[in-house]
């Protein structure tokens, strides 16, 4: 199995499209760092001006922690596309190129092929999230320094001491990995049903966008639907910046996300094991 996973990882590493995600994240993070460096004070004062009428805010508000939090808020929406670019092609790419025939005639079970691709896709996802964490938090702390984190939510403000932020970012990125793993598994599942890569990538994004909209709009009908799609639970990483953290809520969402992974993986295995490879 691990030999197969290493082969799958090698194929991912050698494909140019695998680096689009890293380049895109680096570009966006660099742009936000630059913008915060130049326009940060004006941007932040716009948001906290009401707050300053009631409280005296002292210290370094614009710091690496705040900038990282802002980057996560922005990028977490785009990350599914960057993940699907690679994982949506894992099986359909093999079908399109015809290599699926050779792969499926080797002495490895089809389930092993799927599991190897699933693991490789998830390792890629984790590395992408680690990259995001490293360059947003690492470079952010280098440029802007450390400091307390002020988080403005819709109905409350949370302030975290500088030494209380690192584990929260770690946990948030861990949950982001799990959320994106659902996206990776979902796009891989779609990729098992088709012979072209565009379909799974576009469909994954369409599903993420549609259910994110449904989860955001406060219609009674949508509120009945919204607890079920994985997109609703993908934003649970923000729960790490609640004070105190609602662990029951976080755990429930994590379980829903794991359930989705199991469901999509199960469907992929069942379909691919029965599939006649005719292309």
């Amino acid at each position, binding site marked *: 199995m691990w030999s197969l996973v290493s*082969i799958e990882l090698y194929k991912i590493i050698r*494909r140019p499209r695998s680096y689009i995600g890293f380049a895109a994240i680096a570009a966006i993070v660099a742009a936000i760092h630059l913008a915060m460096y130049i326009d940060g004070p004006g941007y932040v004062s716009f948001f906290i001006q009401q707050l300053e009428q009631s409280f005296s805010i002292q210290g370094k508000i614009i710091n690496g922690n705040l900038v990282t939090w802002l980057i996560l808020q922005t990028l977490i929406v785009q990350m599914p596309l960057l993940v699907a670019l690679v994982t949506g092609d894992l099986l359909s790419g093999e079908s399109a190129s015809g290599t699926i*025939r*050779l792969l499926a005639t080797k*002495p*490895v079970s089809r389930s092993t092929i799927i599991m190897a691709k699933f693991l490789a896709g998830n390792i890629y996802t984790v590395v992408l999230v680690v990259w995001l964490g490293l360059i947003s938090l690492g470079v952010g702390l280098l440029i802007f320094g450390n400091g307390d984190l002020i988080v403005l939510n819709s109905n409350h403000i949370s302030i975290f001491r500088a030494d209380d932020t690192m584990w929260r970012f770690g946990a948030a990125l861990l949950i982001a990995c799990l959320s994106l793993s659902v996206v990776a598994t979902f796009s891989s599942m779609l990729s098992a049903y088709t012979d072209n890569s565009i379909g799974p990538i576009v469909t994954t994004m369409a599903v993420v966008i549609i259910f994110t909209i449904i989860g955001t709009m406060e219609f009674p009908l949508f509120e009945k639907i919204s607890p079920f799609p994985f997109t609703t639970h993908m934003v649970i990483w923000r729960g790490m910046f609640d004070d105190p953290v609602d662990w029951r809520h976080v755990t429930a969402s994590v379980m829903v996300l794991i359930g989705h992974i199991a469901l999509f993986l199960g469907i992929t295995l069942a379909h691919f094991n029965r599939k006649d490879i*005719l292309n």
Partner: protein
Amino acid sequence: MHPLPIIELRHLSKTFGDLHAVDDLNLDVFEGDIFGFLGPNGAGKSTTIRMMLSLVKPSEGLISIFGKELNQNRHEILQRIGCIIEDPDFYLYLSGEKNLDLFARLSGKSPETKKIHELMELVGLKGREQDKVKTYSHGMKQRLGIAQTLIHDPDLIILDEPTTGLDPQGIIDVRNLILHLKNDLRKTIFLSSHLLHEVEQIATRMAIINKGKAVVQGNVSELLSTHDLNVSVEVDNGERMNSLISSSAWQHKLIKKSGGHFEFRISKEEIPVLNQFLNGAGLAIYGTSYRRNLEDYFLKLTQDAS
């Protein structure tokens, strides 16, 4: 007496909706055979091969390879098979050498670079080992495909149209390579091809299928000897020969004439009779040759079946 069958197909069928792609097919391939698998387009050759390689699940029937049922012993059986299925497709963004390395590792082997280079030299790709496959021509990919079938040293090699896209020298090279694999390395070859003269030249046994059914199978030389031959005769006097034939029953068996060259479609047993007739008439016979044209045979059988 035949050695043990390497491949046994029993009542093998595959349907896609209403289409019977393969219909109650029975086939035996023996150890050491170069088995020619012939049939017109859409006859069910590729579907049969895909079922033998577990790419397609049979609707009915049994596939046994190396004496073991495929479904129950898939891993063990596929470890001993090398194959090309239709087009030779590879990871275009990787080098030829890396592709071979990956496919060998998928077969449970870790070949040394030296062995990969030897194989690439064997198929005429020396010097292109490090080049990405996307820079290869179709013929080069076909050659790499053949190297890929051999990389894990299999006992049975399944080749589906292995000479497609090759130039004449490439076709000869592949033919010689197949003979080398059989004669020197004692491999069993299952060769599906539409190039009938290729099969005729190298196969020991063959089967022809049409509409998913086996029309005929057996030893190539035996199958060919039981049917009419194209017999060419060259004589000293074409005009005399022409008038002689025109006034005899041989005129109905004459299919071509040009100067002193005459071609008849007759059975093997009729050759000495024809020679005797011509000699008796005082004609000098410079030469007689015959050829069982597999293409005629193939067309005849497939037309009969349809």
